[in-house]
C-alpha cells in the first residue's frame, strides 16, 4: 500500500534492521578472531615456560600477558555490543512490521468508514430513509470508529515499547562505553579533565627546503651560508637536525685565509625543539634560492571521550543527570618562503558531540512523576589565519579581512540553548611551535579547545573552542516538553 498512512507522517521506527544484523555479524567475526588470538598468545606463553628461561623469555612472557588481557577485554566488548545491537535490530524489525500492519489496517478502516458515511448520507438525503438501513449503517460507522481507536491505541503502545527499546539500547551502549573508558560515574558533581597530548605528524623544520645567505664578514671575506633542516625518522618530532654549512672565500688581498676557501659544517640535533637560529654572517642579506620553498609544517590531532554524572535539583526536576562527550580537534600549519617574502597559513578545527540524559522526578503543569529524557547535540568550529611578511611589511588575513600586526578579533560565535562555539585567529610575534588541544567535561561545562600557537617562528596564532553547558541543555530540552 502506498500513499497516506494514518497515525504519523514521519517514520517512527527509523533504521534498517537488516543492516544492523549485518553489522552484528561483522562484530561477531571480529570477536571470534580476537578470542582465538588471545587464546593463541596465552598458549604460546604457557608452552614456553617449560623450555625457555632467561631474560628474553621473561620479557616475552611479560609482553604476552600484557597483550592477552586487552584482547580478552576486546572480545567481551565485541560480544556485548553485538548482543545489544542484535536485540535492538529485533525490536526495530518487530516495530516496523507491526507498525505497518496497524497503519494498513487503520487505513482500511478509514476507507470503509468513508464508504459507510457516503451510504448513510445517501440514505438520509433520499427523502424517505429506511430507518432499519440507517440504523444499520450507523452501527457499522460506530464499529469502524471503534476499530480505528483500537488500532490507534495498539500503535501508540507499539511506539511506547519501541521508545523503551531505544532508551535501553542507548543506556546499554552508554554503560559499555563508560565502563570501558574506565569512568567513575559514582561521584557527585564529578569533574573529569583530560588534556590529550596531540600527536605531531611532522615538526616545524626546513623539511625539504634549503636556505642560503650570502654576505661578507668583518674582514671583507665572501661568506655563503647554507642552512638545511631535516626531520627525524617517520616524521617524529624527535631528532630534528639543522645543518649549517658556511663557506668563506677570502677577499682579494686578505691575509687571514691563506687564499683558500674554508668550509665549516655544523650539525645541530634537537629533541622536540625548533632548531636554533644559525649564526649570521655580518652584513649578510637573505636571498631566496628557489621561487618558493616550504620551510615548515606542523599538524596535530586529538580526540577525547569522557562522561560524567551527578545528582541535580532544578525548579521542576530532581534526579540524576549525566553527560558524555566525544570531542575531536585538528590543527595544522605551514610556512613558505619565496621571492615575494614569507607566507604562513594555519588552521584549526574542533568538533564535539554531547550526549546528555536525565532521569528523575518531575513536577510540572504537564507532567508529574518519573521521567527519563535524552538529548544529543553537536557543534563544530573552525578558524584559519594567513600571515605574510614582504618588503612592504606585515599583513595578515582571516576570512578575507586584512589586519596589520597585533591580535585580531574573534568571529563566528554562536550561543544557543547552552551550546556555544567560536573561532578565533590572531597574529602574534614569537618563535617556537605549540599545539595545545584540550577537552574538559563536567556537568556545568563541556569545552573543546584547539590552539595552535606561535607558528613557524613567524608568529601566527589560531584557536577554536566549543562550549556546551549540559545543565542548560538538559533544562532547555526539558522545557521543550513542558517539564
Amino acid at each position, binding site marked *: 500500500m502506498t500513499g497516506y498512512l494514518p497515525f504519523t507522517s514521519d517514520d517512527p521506527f*527509523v*533504521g*534498517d534492521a537488516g*543492516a*544492523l544484523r549485518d*553489522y552484528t555479524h*561483522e*562484530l561477531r*567475526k*571480529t570477536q571470534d*578472531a*580476537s578470542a*582465538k*588470538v588471545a587464546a*593463541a*598468545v596465552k*598458549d*604460546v606463553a*604457557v*608452552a*614456553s615456560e*617449560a*623450555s*625457555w628461561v632467561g631474560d*628474553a*623469555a621473561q*620479557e*616475552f612472557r611479560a*609482553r*604476552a600477558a*600484557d*597483550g592477552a588481557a*586487552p*584482547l580478552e*577485554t*576486546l572480545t567481551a*566488548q*565485541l560480544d556485548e*555490543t553485538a548482543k545489544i*545491537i542484535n536485540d*535492538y535490530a529485533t525490536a*526495530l524489525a518487530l516495530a516496523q512490521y507491526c507498525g505497518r500492519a496497524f497503519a494498513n489496517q487503520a487505513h482500511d478502516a478509514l476507507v470503509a468508514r468513508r464508504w459507510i458515511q457516503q451510504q448513510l448520507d445517501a440514505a438520509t438525503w433520499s427523502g424517505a430513509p429506511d430507518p432499519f438501513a440507517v440504523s444499520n449503517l450507523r452501527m457499522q460507522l460506530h464499529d469502524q470508529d471503534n476499530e480505528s481507536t483500537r488500532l490507534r491505541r495498539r500503535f501508540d503502545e507499539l511506539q511506547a515499547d519501541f521508545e523503551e527499546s*531505544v*532508551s535501553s*539500547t*542507548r543506556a546499554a*551502549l*552508554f554503560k*559499555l*562505553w563508560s565502563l*570501558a*573508558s574506565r569512568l567513575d560515574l559514582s561521584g557527585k558533581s564529578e569533574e573529569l579533565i583530560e588534556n590529550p597530548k596531540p600527536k605531531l605528524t611532522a615538526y616545524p623544520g626546513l623539511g625539504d627546503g634549503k636556505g642560503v645567505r650570502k654576505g661578507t664578514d668583518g674582514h671583507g671575506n665572501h661568506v655563503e651560508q647554507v642552512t638545511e633542516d631535516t626531520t627525524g625518522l617517520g616524521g617524529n618530532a624527535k631528532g630534528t637536525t639543522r645543518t649549517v654549512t658556511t663557506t668563506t672565500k677570502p677577499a682579494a688581498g686578505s691575509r687571514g685565509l691563506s687564499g683558500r676557501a674554508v668550509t665549516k659544517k655544523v650539525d645541530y640535533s634537537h629533541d622536540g625543539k625548533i632548531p636554533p637560529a644559525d649564526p649570521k654572517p655580518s652584513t649578510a642579506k637573505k636571498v631566496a634560492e628557489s621561487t618558493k620553498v616550504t620551510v615548515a609544517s606542523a599538524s596535530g590531532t586529538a*580526540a577525547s*571521550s569522557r562522561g560524567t554524572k551527578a545528582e541535580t535539583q532544578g525548579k521542576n526536576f530532581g534526579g540524576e543527570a549525566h553527560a*558524555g562527550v*566525544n570531542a575531536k580537534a585538528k590543527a595544522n600549519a605551514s610556512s613558505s618562503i619565496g621571492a615575494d617574502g614569507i607566507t604562513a597559513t594555519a588552521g584549526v578545527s574542533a568538533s564535539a*558531540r554531547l*550526549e546528555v540524559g536525565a532521569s528523575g522526578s518531575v513536577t510540572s503543569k504537564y507532567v508529574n512523576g518519573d521521567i527519563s529524557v*535524552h538529548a*544529543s547535540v553537536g557543534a563544530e568550529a573552525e578558524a584559519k589565519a594567513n600571515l605574510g611578511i614582504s618588503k612592504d611589511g606585515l599583513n595578515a588575513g582571516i576570512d578575507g579581512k586584512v589586519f596589520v600586526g597585533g591580535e585580531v578579533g574573534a568571529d563566528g560565535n554562536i550561543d544557543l540553548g547552552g551550546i556555544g562555539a567560536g573561532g578565533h585567529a590572531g597574529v602574534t610575534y614569537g618563535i617556537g611551535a605549540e599545539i595545545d588541544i584540550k577537552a574538559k567535561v563536567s556537568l556545568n561545562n563541556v569545552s573543546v579547545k584547539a590552539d595552535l600557537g606561535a607558528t613557524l617562528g613567524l608568529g601566527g596564532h589560531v584557536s577554536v573552542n566549543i562550549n556546551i553547558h549540559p545543565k542548560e541543555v538538559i533544562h532547555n530540552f526539558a522545557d521543550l516538553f513542558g517539564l
Partner: protein
Amino acid sequence: MRFDVTPDALDTAAQQIRQQSDSLGQTPSAASLRTVPAVNGALELVDDLLRADLNGARRNLSSIAEALTSAANTYRSNESAVALATRVAP
C-alpha cells in the same frame, strides 16, 4: 603445544603472531547505520571505543612478535660467536 627455543622456531612463532594480528581485520564501521539519533550517538561512542581497543591489541601483538624476533636474532648472533670461537680455538 610444543615450544622450541631455536632461532628459527622463535622466528616462526613471531610470524604466527603477526599473522594472528592480521586475522583480526578491521572492526566494522557503524557510521553508515541509520538509526534513531539516541542510538546513533551512543553507537558512535562505542564504535570509536572498539576501534581504539583493536588498534591497541594490534600494537600489543606487534610488541610480542618483536620480543620473539629479538630473542631469535640474539641467539643467532650468539651461535655465530660460539662457532667462530670454536674455529679459532687452538
